[in-house]
């Protein structure tokens, strides 16, 4: 059971992230939700790489090693995630400058108003 815990945590993080994405009107929180969601996935990968009694994959040390490949991949994914977050935040800044609010419903209302 214990070794499954990280998987459950991953699922939980994914769920929490999605819930925030779906339910919260605040755009910043949506971005945060996205981050939580992604973190859940990263956790999943890293967990998959873990190995009972394994150590860091340092060739100088003796095995067994944790699988290094997922870790490398997640490193890349984290970079991607950070970039995405950066772009998202940039967009948020622009939205705030334009509409003075970061609530999606308010922004939409403003856009609708502008159209009419």
């Amino acid at each position, binding site marked *: 059971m214990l070794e499954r815990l990280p998987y459950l945590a991953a699922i939980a993080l994914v769920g929490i992230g999605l819930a925030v994405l*779906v*339910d*919260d009107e605040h*755009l910043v929180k949506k971005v945060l939700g996205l981050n939580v969601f992604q973190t859940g996935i990263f956790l999943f990968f890293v967990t998959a790489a873990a190995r009972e009694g394994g150590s860091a994959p340092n060739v100088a040390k003796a095995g067994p090693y944790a699988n290094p490949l997922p870790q490398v991949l997640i490193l890349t994914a984290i970079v991607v995630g950070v970039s995405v977050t950066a772009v998202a935040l940039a967009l948020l800044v622009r939205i705030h400058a334009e509409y003075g609010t970061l609530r999606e419903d308010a922004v939409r209302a403003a856009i609708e108003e502008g159209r009419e």
Partner: protein
Amino acid sequence: MIVPPAVFLLVAAAVTAVVPRRIGHAAGVLAALGALVVALTTPLGTVTDATLFGFPARPVAVDGFARVVGGVLAFIAAANTVYAYGSGADRQETAIALAYAGASLGAVFAGDWLTLVVCWELMAVAATVLVWRSTAGRAGYRYAVYHQIGGALLIAGVVAHYAATGSFVYAAGIATGLPRVLATAGVLVNVGMLGVHVWIVDTYPRPSVTTSVVLCGFTTKVGVYTLVRVVPGRNVLLAYAGGTMLLFGVTMAILQTDFRRLLSYHIVSQVGYMVAGVGVASGLGYGGAMAHLANNVLYKTLLFMIAGVVLIETGTENLKRLGGLGRAMPATAAAFAVAALAISGIPGFSGFVSKGMVVDSVDAAGLDALWWMLLVGGVGTVISFAKIAYYAFVRADQYGHDPGRATPAQITAMGGIAAVVVGFGLFPDLLLDLLPAGRDAAKVFAASQFEKALGIAAVGLVAFAVLRRPLKRITAVPDLDSVYHPAGAVLRDSVVRAATGVADTLGRSRRSTGVAIYRAASVDVGRPASIGRSVLLLTLVAALVVVFLLS
């Protein structure tokens, strides 16, 4: 290779339509006489083979029957043109009449079914146009419908014949079975068989007088002639149908008070004689039928001409409102006398000979009941013409008519026909020698014929004397058309309504389906889905996929 007689008339028709009236009519007469000459001089057995619409055909084939019928029709076309000239017909009408006659001659001299059908339909068209030109109301329309239906049946029969035999050229009639049934039915429409005879009495009394004159001679007679081609051989049913036509036509004729309508019923009755002869199908029967056909064309046309003159000069053709014409219009009265005696079968006039031949052929065939029917029919004929004679010519005028005389051209036309009627009556060999059959068996001037004829005449006259008063009280007599025409209208309207109703319903259902789809499409369009909703949808689908795949 001969010039088909029809061509004379068709060319004349085209000419008459455009040249001045007098020249046109003259051309018409000349053309008709030319056709007559060709018809009479062309050797029997002459045929012309050609290709029609890609089919081998025989547009012209001269045999005995064709010669007689064609000759008499050509002659009558000439007389009609003269009469039309004298009765104020315009050149257009005469042109169409010539075309009509031309088509009839084409049908008579046709040597194959395809040519026949072509001419048959042309006759229908020409006659329809003639009727329309001077008939208001829907009678002309009905005329067209009757003939289109008849034509369609004939076409069906002919085509079926071709499908069965692979040839259109005349051989031994239409192939038996369905083709013959169809073709016979089609021809009988034109013949005016009892039951479909209504178009005759519906149409012929209505148009202008010249049109009636033209119409009365051709369509039914070509029908009878064609019947011989379609159903060769003895056909008792047909013979009795002829007898029935005779009795029915005569009875209805007696009850009429309208001059031309009375004559129209007599077309039915006279055609009955011919059909009886065709049904008997002996040499005598055919000979009698054809001879009667020729004679009937002559005197029936003459009668319509007389009715026309009377109508033009007095302004009415209601027998109850006529009188004294015998003195006022002597030439016309004389012509009437000839025609009436001829149709009544009085010796010395043409009807006597041919009617006798038909009656004898029936006797020889042993059809006793039919024989009696023919005799009774003869009596009826006498009664109805006695009626006309009495009311229009004999009794004194009570209505102050001041009729003028017939025009010279009218008199010429009537006189010419009357002369032929008398000629054929006195010298029947003139006619009978032309016929291929029946001459030998005909006992033309046998004593028995005289007895019968005179007996019939006597009975008829007595009967008229007795019946005159009762007949006065009878006014309009309904015929089958009082059922057909309303029924036809109801049928047409209901079919049209039903069909368009189906279309309307389909259209409505299509529209409502369209509206429903449109409404369905308008869900979820008003404003773009929010981010939350988008992700929710995505999550739901993901959940579905996971559940679906892992279960």
